[in-house]
């Protein structure tokens, strides 16, 4: 009897061990994605749209939950992640543009360092500049001659920094009015005629501004551009018929901007804030096999036709969702800006617009 009992016990133990060794790491676990904004914003919706596909494609089908931690202009949640998340692959951070910009301009409240994180996946977006026909500007190269350019912006810093630095690079001096509640109200002010120059992400441009273009009430000028895998500036895949800031600089000045401090500042903001603006991060010490699991899930997700239709087309605007390990080195390089560039951006904002950032 006792031997039979021991045998049963052994069998059960061996079976349990074998099955636990064979079971995927994520089986029966809960993955929490920290989103440092309130629910409902574009970055939150994107994460929530991706969550069911992560559940489907991570081996072991964990349940994936979103945890909103707003506050401190997206810094509070990102700090929390840096200080509290265990490196077990069960807590991830969806860093919105605000956290990235705060990091690269070295906001003193920032307690996180992307160099200590591992990249799971990253995607980006682009943006389009357009003017009112009243300005007389027909194409981007006309901008330096234009007068009465008025652009609206939420309070600095934030993503409008990219637009301001772009204008400075091209030698254009628009009046910038700070104080809009967001980019949406600024767009409405453009429609009302209170503003004459505006800058919107491509998805907003395609859905909200193109009808104005067709009605003759807005003139599209240029895009920020996009970066290919090797870091070269290319045309924005979502709006390929418009020139990029890089091209427009050459049209105006007859030479390439590479090497200029102004260009470095623009490129830094454009890369960190837009091209790699939506990153999903894991804590630094996450075991390689867990990271591999996540990275493979990104591959499987990209191959999923449902994901392509529901998420990639609608919310990623056709921009690729990169597997983190493939682009990690590039992203890390783009997130580190030298102090002279940070100082240039600060000085520009202070001297031209009276804003200390």
């Amino acid at each position, binding site marked *: 009897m006792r031997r039979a009992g021991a045998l049963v016990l052994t069998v059960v133990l061996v079976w349990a061990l074998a099955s636990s060794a064979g079971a995927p790491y994520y089986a029966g676990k809960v993955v929490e994605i920290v989103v440092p904004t309130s*629910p409902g914003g574009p970055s939150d919706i994107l994460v929530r749209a991706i969550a069911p596909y992560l559940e489907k494609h991570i081996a072991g089908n964990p349940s994936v939950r979103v945890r909103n931690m707003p506050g401190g202009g997206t810094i509070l949640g990102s700090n929390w992640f840096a200080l509290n998340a265990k490196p077990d692959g069960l807590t991830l951070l969806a860093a919105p543009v605000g956290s990235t910009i705060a990091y690269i301009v070295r906001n003193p409240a920032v307690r996180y360092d992307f160099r200590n994180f591992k990249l799971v996946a990253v995607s980006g977006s682009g943006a389009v500049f357009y003017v009112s026909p009243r300005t007389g500007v027909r194409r981007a190269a006309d901008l330096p001659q234009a007068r009465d350019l008025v652009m609206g912006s939420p309070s600095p810093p934030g993503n409008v920094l990219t637009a301001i630095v772009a204008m400075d690079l091209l030698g254009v001096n628009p009046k910038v009015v700070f104080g809009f509640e967001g980019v949406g109200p600024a767009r409405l002010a453009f429609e009302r005629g*209170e503003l004459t120059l505006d800058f919107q992400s491509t998805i907003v441009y395609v*859905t909200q501004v193109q009808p104005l273009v067709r009605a003759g009430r807005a003139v599209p000028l240029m895009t920020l551009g996009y970066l290919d895998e090797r870091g070269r500036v290319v045309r924005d895949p979502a709006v390929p018929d418009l020139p990029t800031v890089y091209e427009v600089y050459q049209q105006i000045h007859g030479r390439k901007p590479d090497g200029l401090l102004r260009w470095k500042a623009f490129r830094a903001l454009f890369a960190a804030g837009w091209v790699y603006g939506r990153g999903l991060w894991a804590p630094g010490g996450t075991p390689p096999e867990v990271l591999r699991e996540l990275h493979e899930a990104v591959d499987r997700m990209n191959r999923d036709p449902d994901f392509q239709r529901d998420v990639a087309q609608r919310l990623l605007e056709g921009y690729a969702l990169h597997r983190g390990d493939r682009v990690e080195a590039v992203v890390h390089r783009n997130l580190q800006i030298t102090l002279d560039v940070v100082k240039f951006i600060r000085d520009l904002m202070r001297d031209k617009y009276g804003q200390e950032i």
Partner: protein
Amino acid sequence: MVDAALNALATFASPLRLGLLLVGVLAGLVVGILPGLGGIVAISLLLPLIFRLDPPTALATLTGALAVVYTADVITSVLVGTPGSPAAAPTAMEGHALARQGQAARALAAAFLSSVAGGLLGVVGLTLSIPVARPLVMLLGSPELFSFTVLGLAYAGSLLGRSPLRGLLSGLLGLLLGLVGPAPAAAEFRYTFGQLYLLDGLSLEVLALGVFGVAEVVSLLARGGAIARQAGLGGGWWDGVRDVLTHRWLVVRGALIGVWAGILPAIGATAASWMAYGHAVATSRDRDRFGRGDVRGIVAPESANNAATAGDLIPTLLFSVPGGPAAAVILGALYAYGVYPGPRLIQDHLDLVYVIVWSFSLANILGAAVCFALSPAVARLTHIPFAWVAPPLLVTMALGAYQTTRHAGDLLALLLLGLLGWAMKRSGWPRAPLLIGFVLAKPMERYFWLTVKLHGWSWLGHPGVLAIAALIVVPPLVAAVRRARAQSRPTPGRGVGAPATDTRPEPVAVFMAAVAVLAFGLGAGQGLGFQYDARLMPLLASVPGLFLGVVQLARVVRGEPVGPVDEEGVDDDGSPQRPRVQAELYGFGVVAAYLLGVWLVGFHVASFGFVALLLWQAGKVRPPLAVLSAAAALACFQLLAAGFDLRWPTGLLLR
């Protein structure tokens, strides 16, 4: 258009859709009843559904949750005087005063009915506005928006209460508190004192919860007994229904104010409630009962806040610019379906627009029906000892406050704002201007700078601005003329407290005035150091505040009587004040100890100990029963938190 509307209605023939709409409504009701939790909690709870359901079903669920929050928040407001959501603060004043006079049923009926009426009128506004709102909104530039915020502040003028000096101070203090955090027009974080928690400013939820909720709980605890001072549910349901019918035009005007506030960016349901309340006060000839349980002060704001929710959807659907945080989630859901609201929405997806319209209407009716059904039972809460109601209520408030950022700062803010609210109440400072100043401070500053920078001074001649200026100036003039005429007839004067026999300074009043002087002094001192574009509003609020505060301080030190202490007036029963203040301070200590406990040893241990101790000590419940009740309450919170994905502090010491 009629076809599309009818087709959309036909989509509700499916039991699944109707069922999920009801799920949304129930989630919205729970969140509305629980103080501190707003519509955004209900809607983000339901958000994962949108990736699993078809668009009409998901939109019905989300809209259902959104539509009823401002119907259900009435219950908490009327019964325990704690606003279920910030927008219900006027109802917490007037409705709760009625409840204490034993007329809870009447207040609830009037509030539910005007809520549903406001919601339905709002949705009519939404439907009618679809063809005309676009050109209309295009007329509203920054100068017009700025003028509207000034109009909102002018409405607050009718809420200054018995002492204009204290009313003004309260409004200025609200402005100052509203300015904490990022300046709208400059890269400057103001009054953050190096605290990351303050970087986004104070949360409206925590402010309303502290200033109205905590203060009320402390007073009720100290007084002991049940909430209602008279037995029976009083006047009854039909009185409330009759009230709404009598004041039907006030309901309609409230709804108009609400829709309008919803359309305007940055002005939401809370501002709508107070503007409607101010409108009700301003247009009433007999104002004596306001603040002491006047049903007109319930029907106007309740109609307005439900209508504002519908109004919020107008810019959301027409321009892709969300009218409020909850509308932002609806917008996100539409994006997720590849539907981009804006110029093309009406042509491409009129069916979805009507699904939202119908869901909103159905949810309003369903929500009010459920509330009516629940009320006879919950209204009895006003007749059991308050010491039994207080512990779970305070636990809910702490849990609710903690959801705003899930940072220990939420608990501290709740405590300090509670102390402020209590001190204001005890020293006869009206709290309405504080809340209005708070919600309007940033929009006003924002649109002022946009206006001046975009238009120079030419905007002063815009026809829209002139029309709004007339709205600000004419009603007070008419009222003044009317009053001048009335003064020729003798009117029965209202006794403002007994003649002061005791001229010793009131300690709480001195404390409150000193706090105000300190706050304004700090505000002015720091304000001088801000960047140019961030300096004007802080100085506009704190410099006059400092002067008036010093005057107030001098008055109370000389022993100016506080007058009837409760805004509701019903507490003014001539009982000696000092012992009551002591009892309330003791109650405050209990609340502080609890919040500190939550921070130190975590939510579970602290809440269990707090509920059990309070039931035993204050509620006179036998210890075994108290412990059992505490365990049961904790189990309920556990369920609630699991269901609504709430978090709680784990405790500094137990990490």
